[in-house]
């Protein structure tokens, strides 16, 4: 028996900011969930199950927060699942929800991911003082910066490519009312003059720390037929993982990322991603990850990703727009960041992305990764139902 086609009929998110001091965690997730239901014109009673994700519990210090969020998400008396795969969790949460629909376990599922980073300090949560271990000397940016240098060495990319990505994403964010950073006076010169934090990564090439939530309503063919607005159809979805550090790990272009993309393309019948995919919303917490992922995801040959960025191909009006929403560089509630990527892909193929809409986007890839390039999750959504 074939799988049930999965449609996204509702998308909702909060206005992402540094600190939402006016709401509890319950109030925050509620806001995104309510907006997703409103988009789908559904009520709590129409939801069969809730699948929720967030990054480590130490980020807020509430152990298993999903238990106390059941009331806020209308999940009392229904199945509720929590997913955790570090920074990629927003993507894998959506895929777990999608699989419940595809397997015909449930007809309509609410999926949601969040982080309220202002309640703690993510850097602290990621660097607990484990006895007998040498403390990490550099912080999150310092963990990734050596990989960026390795990419530059391997490809010969000019130093300026990272700043081009940051300048583009911050300008895209100005078109997205939900984005955290709205730097109206951004210029390329300002990005290039921003302080060098972890050389080769500058301040303006790093992501912010945000409070925010993102939700989607996923449903089956019958649910999509009742939807008031055009659905996004899932054409492929996959997850892969590998250890953070192992002998032979390619941190610049991890095998798990390549395998994950290949699986998605096979499901979706994508022969040439560069030609067959109209836009990409990918997880870029540090600007240089755009050219790195362009190669890892098969949009460019190895060593060639930076040339797409440099040529303006990934601009909003380019041939392959990347991070139309402003990306993780403009908004980063860690647990929600993966789902925001997936949701942006859905908005694009639904034609509902507003000012950052890519004209005629029919097939868009949403991508997330997490840990030390350890977990990957991706989906490809289209404006038309998948050919069965």
């Amino acid at each position: 028996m074939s799988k049930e086609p999965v449609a996204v009929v509702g998308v909702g998110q909060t206005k992402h900011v540094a600190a939402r001091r006016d709401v509890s965690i319950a109030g925050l997730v509620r806001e995104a969930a309510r907006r997703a239901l409103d988009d789908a014109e559904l009520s709590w009673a129409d939801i069969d199950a809730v699948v929720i994700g967030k990054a480590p519990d130490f980020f807020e210090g509430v152990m298993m927060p999903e238990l106390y969020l059941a009331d806020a998400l209308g999940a009392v008396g229904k199945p509720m699942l929590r997913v955790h795969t570090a920074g990629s969790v927003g993507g894998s949460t959506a895929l777990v929800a999608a699989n419940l629909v595809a397997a015909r376990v449930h007809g309509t599922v609410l999926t949601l991911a969040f982080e309220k980073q202002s309640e703690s300090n993510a850097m602290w949560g990621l660097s607990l003082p484990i006895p007998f271990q040498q403390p990490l000397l550099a912080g999150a940016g310092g963990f990734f910066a050596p990989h960026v240098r390795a990419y530059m060495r391997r490809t010969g990319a000019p130093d300026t490519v990272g700043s081009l990505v940051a300048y583009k994403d911050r300008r895209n964010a100005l078109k997205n009312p939900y984005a955290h950073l709205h730097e109206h006076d951004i210029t390329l010169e300002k990005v290039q003059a921003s302080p060098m934090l972890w050389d080769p990564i500058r301040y303006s090439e790093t992501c912010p720390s945000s409070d925010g939530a993102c939700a989607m309503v996923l449903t089956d063919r019958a649910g999509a037929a009742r939807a008031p607005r055009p659905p996004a159809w899932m054409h492929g979805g996959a997850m892969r993982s590998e250890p953070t550090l192992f002998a032979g790990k390619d941190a610049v272009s991890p095998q798990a990322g390549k395998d994950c993309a290949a699986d998605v393309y096979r499901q979706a019948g994508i022969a040439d991603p560069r030609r067959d995919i109209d836009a990409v919303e990918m997880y870029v917490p540090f600007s240089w990850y755009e050219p790195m992922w362009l190669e890892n995801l098969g949009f460019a040959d190895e060593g060639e990703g930076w040339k797409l960025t440099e040529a303006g191909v990934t601009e909003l009006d380019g041939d392959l727009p990347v991070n139309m929403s402003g990306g993780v560089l403009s908004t980063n509630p860690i647990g929600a960041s993966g789902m925001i990527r997936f949701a942006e892909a859905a908005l694009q193929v639904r034609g509902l992305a507003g000012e950052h809409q890519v004209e005629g986007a029919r097939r868009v890839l949403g991508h997330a990764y997490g840990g030390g390039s350890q977990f990957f999750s991706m989906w490809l959504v289209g404006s038309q139902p998948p050919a069965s």
Partner: protein
Amino acid sequence: MPQVLKAPLAVEFPFTRSLGPVQSAFLTGLRERVLLGVKTVDGRVLVPPVEYDPVTADEIRDLVEVAGTGTVTTWAWNHEPRRGQPLDTPFAWVLVRLDGADTALLHALDVPGPDAVRTGMRVRVRWAEERTGAITDIACFEPYDGEPEQPAGHSGEFEDAITGIVAAARLDYTYSPGRAQSAYIHALSDRRMVGERCPSCRKVYVPPRGACPTCGVATSEQVEVGPRGTVTTFCIVNIKAKNLDIEVPYVYAHIALDGADLALHARIGGIPYDQVRMGLRVEPVWTDGSRFPDHYRPTGEVDAEYDTYKELL
């Protein structure tokens, strides 16, 4: 076999909580000796209050004052109070349904022993002397045989309401790095770096993990590596990290020790930060009283060719 190491690990952080409207009213109420519940769509009063109706999922904001007297619905005796609990002498954990509420609140009951507790007994709030807007503003409950108190019908609106609290959390663990890492750490005290080789793929892991993450098999063959190695990649850190007494800028590098099949991470010294490069040959610098090398410094050898370390970034 050398002794497997163990050490305490305390995970401690002062988390902040944005309360939202309902918890804000509840905790501000405690500060003012007012107990508030919230009315659900079907008319029940929940204490402590929640923001969303557990049955209908509606947003609920109708705050109702309840009494400081109530009835124990169930209990358990706590023989040995732990740090941070409401009382430092043995007490009963009780669920108390306050007069006017339909649900019960968890708190402590101050009685001399378990014989003095029973389900159905009447109790009353004992307020803390100093109240800040926290659940600890209720010091505990105490036995009570008077008339039910009559709530004054407070609206739940306060001047100077609390909107956030700090909730300090602490978890105490006993941490053990296990057999393989213990052996590695013991060897470090002789200033030797000893890894383990995978019997299947032959890769040498330093520090060793006791198993190969690629092959999924146990490792036991010990291999001494280094002490010299090659900087495979690095970054220059320009921001001072909390709790780290290192002057910036400094270089944080991946170093492939000779004989190891993946890089470890360490600081480079003994050379201006802007002269560090990929391929630089380095050796450890040990200081007395420190388990790990303080940093690595150049050996003076010619740089390694890129092809010799490009798989070890």
